[in-house]
């Protein structure tokens, strides 16, 4: 028994005790092949997956070194069967290779003929493979590259993709590092991405994902297509790129509902790409409009299904996915990995907070007790309406007001999911509302006013879930949400995580109605953040309201 920090579980999860003196070394050793699943305060959970092990193989780690580090850091004897399984899994990688043959173009080459015969027979690959060139080689149509890789992965014989990437149309892009430099983790993320060719970088909100994208562009030095969630986010990208890189305004095009510019660097919204006209997607041609050298997917956890399909055809181009939370409520994380690429970089939120790159945040769950009348109304509500009734209880209003008053000098965002409630709040707090129907112009104006400090309180609907850069927001108050969505909670916390000029703490309040389904959903929503090490404090609304209880009319 070595007394190490790692405990290997039979279900292939690895438990890392964070307070152990060797924890850091262990983390470095297992990070290449194990995926970080949860990182609460004491014990982090990693998981060994075939995908993770194959990625490690692709990155040059062999089974021996994986087994060695497991044994070296394990506190208890590691079951023999698990070690055998790891070795066997890793051994499956690279028996097949996708290579560019000078004579035949893209081919699938089997270093192990039997495996090649096995996969060639598989029904799942029907139609993807072309003519058999010789015993070890089968031709592959370039457009099937992504789907073939995906199918081979499902068969358990991942192909090593040696066919490389097209460089795309060259375009000079440099980082303009005047007075700032790329943070160490951003550099690591870019390096990890570039070494792998394509993949996903997971960084907390506010940790500067845009800069990772910019740095990737500066490395690629090629025309770039950036896909973002909405127009406002697109304009933020544009602003950031102009400020941080050698790109000028003329080089960056916006491809949205309002404008259709295609330039060396083009920023397009998911919405415009997936808009349908007569059963077709007229704007998907954008992918082929130029010889893109790099495609960046912002907020990749929101990537819509049609873009997934199209991404399968883009396997020869470098792809970078950016997200804070690779938790898709539709469970399609696997598709993100296989089509855009594996996770290339991931860091626990708390680590980045400890380095001071995101603001430390205090998460507080405020529980309000419903009045008897409200409780009665809730009790007799139909099941599908229950959450709305509980989440929009009027009792929450004075609590929100008290919370806003508690931070008199700080910019406050109030975020909710139900428009009626937001309008009530807007009136009650005397604050403007940004909702889906607010025009882009009005949004920009309000956000600018907020950034400038002219506006202290802003009420946001679901549009506030992502990609709004309001660096000065220090307090977020969540009054209702989309049921139990975990990524929404994380994104909302992300709104206040941008580091503050004076390094002060951010506050994230979520107001829930006690003893209702609201509490249950809140618990579910908090799970992702709790797993990232954010411990929620629960306080009673009465403590917030203080002695003088404001009356509701």
């Amino acid at each position, binding site marked *: 028994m070595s007394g190490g920090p790692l405990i290997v*579980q*039979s279900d292939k999860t690895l438990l890392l005790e964070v307070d152990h003196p060797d924890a850091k070394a262990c983390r470095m050793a297992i990070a290449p092949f194990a995926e970080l699943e*949860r990182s609460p*305060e*004491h*014990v982090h959970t990693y998981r060994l997956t075939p995908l993770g092990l194959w990625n490690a193989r692709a990155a040059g780690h062999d089974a021996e070194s994986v087994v060695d580090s497991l044994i070296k850091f394990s506190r208890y004897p590691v079951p*023999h069967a698990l070690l055998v399984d790891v070795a066997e899994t890793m051994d499956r990688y690279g028996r097949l290779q996708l290579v560019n043959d000078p004579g035949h173009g893209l081919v699938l080459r089997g270093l192990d003929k039997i495996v090649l015969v096995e996969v060639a027979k598989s029904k799942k690959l029907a139609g993807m493979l072309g003519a058999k060139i010789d015993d070890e080689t089968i031709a592959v149509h370039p457009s099937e590259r992504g789907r073939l890789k995906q199918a081979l992965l499902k068969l358990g014989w991942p192909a090593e993709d040696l066919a490389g990437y097209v460089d795309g149309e060259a375009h000079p892009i440099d980082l303009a590092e005047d007075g700032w430099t790329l943070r160490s983790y951003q550099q690591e993320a870019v390096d990890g991405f570039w070494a792998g060719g394509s993949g996903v970088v997971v960084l907390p909100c506010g940790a500067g994902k845009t800069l990772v994208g910019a740095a990737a562009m500066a490395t690629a030095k090629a025309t770039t297509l950036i896909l973002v969630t909405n127009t406002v986010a697109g304009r933020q990208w544009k602003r950031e790129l102009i400020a941080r890189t050698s790109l000028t305004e003329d080089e960056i095009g916006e491809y949205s509902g309002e404008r259709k510019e295609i330039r060396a660097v083009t920023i397009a919204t998911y919405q415009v790409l997936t808009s349908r006209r007569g059963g077709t997607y007229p704007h998907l041609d954008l992918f082929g409009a130029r010889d893109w050298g790099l495609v960046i997917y912002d907020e990749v956890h929101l990537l819509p299904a049609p873009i997934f399909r199209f991404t399968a055809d883009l396997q020869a181009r470098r792809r970078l996915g950016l997200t804070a939370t690779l938790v898709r409520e539709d469970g399609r994380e696997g598709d993100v990995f296989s089509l855009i690429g594996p996770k290339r970089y991931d860091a626990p939120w708390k680590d980045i907070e400890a380095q001071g790159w995101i603001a430390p945040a205090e998460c507080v769950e405020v529980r309000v007790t419903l009045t008897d009348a409200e409780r009665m109304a809730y009790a007799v509500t139909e099941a599908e309406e229950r959450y709305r009734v509980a989440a929009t209880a009027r009792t929450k209003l004075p609590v929100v007001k008290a919370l806003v008053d508690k931070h008199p000098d700080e910019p406050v965002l109030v975020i909710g999911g139900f428009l009626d409630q937001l309008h009530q709040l807007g009136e009650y707090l005397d604050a403007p509302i940004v909702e889906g129907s607010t025009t882009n112009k009005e949004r920009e104006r309000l956000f600018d006013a907020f950034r400038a400090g002219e506006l202290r309180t802003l009420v946001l609907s679901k549009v506030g879930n992502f990609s709004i850069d309001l660096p000065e927001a220090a307090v977020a108050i969540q009054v209702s949400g989309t049921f139990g969505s975990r990524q929404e909670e994380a994104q909302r916390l992300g709104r206040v995580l941008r580091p503050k000029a004076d390094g002060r703490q951010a506050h994230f309040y979520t107001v829930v109605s006690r003893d209702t389904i609201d509490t249950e959903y809140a618990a579910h929503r908090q799970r992702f953040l709790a797993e990232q090490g954010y*411990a*929620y404090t629960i306080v009673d609304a009465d403590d917030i309201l203080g002695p003088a209880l404001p009356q509701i009319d």
Partner: protein
Amino acid sequence: MATTFADHLRSLTDEALSALVQLRPDLVVPVPADVSALAVRAQSRGSVARCLDGLDEFTLAVLDAARLSRSAETALTSIDAILELACDVEPADVRVAVERLRVRFLMFGADDALHLVAAIDEVTSPYPAGLGRPADFLDPQAAALCADKAKLRRTVLAAPPGARAVLDRLAAGPPIGALGRDSQPSAPPVRWLVDNHVLVPISEAGRAPRPDGELVELPREVGLLLRRDTGPLGPLRPFPPIPEGTARDPKSVDSAGAGQVMEAVRSAESLLEALAAEPAPVLRAGGLGVRDLKRLAKAAGLDEPNAALLLEVTHAAGLLGEADAAGTSRSVTVSRASGAVDEIFLPTGAYDLWRALSSAQRWVSLARAWLAMTRQPSLVGQRDDRDRPINALAPDAERAGAPQARREGLLVLADLKPGTAPQVDEVLGLLAWQTPRRARGREAAHRDALAGAAALGVTALGAITSYGRLLFEDVDDADGDPLGVHPGATEPPGDVVRTLDALLPAPVDHVLVQADLSVVVPGPPEPELAAELDVVAEPESAGGASVFRVTAASVRRALDVGYTAADLHSLFRRRSRTPVPQTLSYMIDDAARKHGGLRAGSAGSYLRSDDEALLAEVMADKRLGSLGLRQIAPTVLVSPLQVARLLGGLREAGFAPVAEDAGGVAVLTRPKVRRAPTRTSVAARLTEQAGPPVLAGPRLAGVVEQIRRGDIATRAARRAPVSVRAANGQGVPGLTSVQQHGQAMAVLQQAVREKARVWVGYVDSHGATLSRLVRPVSLSAGYLRAEDERTETLHTFALHRITAAVPDEEN
């Protein structure tokens, strides 16, 4: 011969005799009366075969040489003759082998006049060393060929390649082959060989022709010629093929093994837990169904072969048993109730005791059961002779030789240097050398033994572990007990447990509680802690450590079994090495607050009143003690008695209760007085005697009216129109029946509208034709409803039965 043999035995020293008995212990069971009896037994087939079974490949080869070199006349051989045959190896090694045969008395006599025990020929192959019989014994032409050495060599050299291949195969032994049918590709070369007398067809008299053609034999002389390179006996291996194996660090072997030990113990436990949660039926043919095996394997996170192995082992260890399904019918849901399930598999009582042991002790009891069990788990999932799948725990997987196979396999590993990890095939090769006669056909059993050893952690990384070695030696000691008593059998051998304990992680008594409500036990939990966590949290992952998650449901479960919120708080405070997160405390409090908010119970009747004082009075009334009243709310009392008795009791005590029904409405009951059945008074007879009653008043008028109406109707009936009467009888000239029917419908529809009376002719259910004067009311759905004024009844006529309808002209 027997006398010679007995004489030889008799001439032995006591030491030599005891050496013989030691080598062939079956000779003295039971103890023979005298040396002659011993001699007879030593020459018996059974004893000789058993003795040969224990001999290694080389010794058997030397024995073959001895058999080959016997002179035809005297049936004697000599060491020199044997040495001549075994020319490739050191004579010393051959002498040692001969000595081995002599001390076992398979061979006896002087060096130049060695006897072989006759039974040897009966229990061994008729072709010693894989060589055929001499040519002159088989066929004169072949003998002639063999006599001419040069010609024989030429013939063999002239053989076409196909024929040469056949020759080589037969020369390697056994020297018998089938001629094959002419269509087979191998037929022509063999035919060539037969034609040239290199092969001799051997036909067994009185046997039906074999489907694969005649048998052919390679004469001994030809065989010897072909074995020029390898020597007359074929390749000889005087020394065992010791597996080289990979050298591994014994420490890492032990460590990997210990990991597997924990895994095996844990998996066995989760298998049995899954079985306890949902017992599986015993199949009619015995054993566990495929689907149940799949289910259990999935529940325990194992693959099916390993699940089958562990089920077999736990069954052998007495942790798993069959129980009568009837006794558990209500409390336990048996999966898949196909027909009547008589027996189910359930963990036994011993399982609960086993669970209380330390990991090492638990493993030792499993491992010892595995060593001793006469089962071959690798057969599970394969198909038997009748192509039916073999089920786990089924009688088909029984193999008596399995324990022996395990001992042999593990002994090979145990004889190697610690940490040596040979390939499985190397081990099998050595086993085949050590006891070729026994190893034949047992390869599967040996593979099963090695696979089982790896799965249980007796071996790891291909080498035997230090504790595995001990486990094995302990068993050896027990076997060596002359009285056959196993003193250590009831308690696990201490050495293994101690060695293993040092390798296994020490149990921990604390947990780490985190804000995401996960509870991590950083090591194997103490039994007490495990029991506590089982109740208050849901298991998430297991292995070296266990991860649990506290959920609202698990907290409620804990409250249900009697924990209070304070107990739970103190449990987590006591057990957690880390501060208990606030979310957990809140969750416990929330759950505790809601827990028991609703109360349910059963009562025979209730008593309610808006007047609390009245209920208080009832409660205080001592006379009502027998009613068992209990106050469950200020305005409600309940009683286990039925309503009637409750009411009676209350009334007796002077209260004025009223019963109410399910809707809360008062049920008023009058006291019922008992009466005999009603009888008529004899006074009624007075009127009978007085003659017919005198009618008067309205009643009289009614009678008269009835008579009149009847009369009118009767007259009317007599006057039923011709058309109706005609339709009923002979038909109306000029109209088809269809037209008549259509006309009738029109008449009826008209009559319904006008509420007029109509003559209807119809066929009744007996086929009789009738006509009736009626007033139609409605005509729909294939029926006519009409009232008959005479009888004041409403009639329904099926439309298809109506033959005619004529309006009544009288009104």
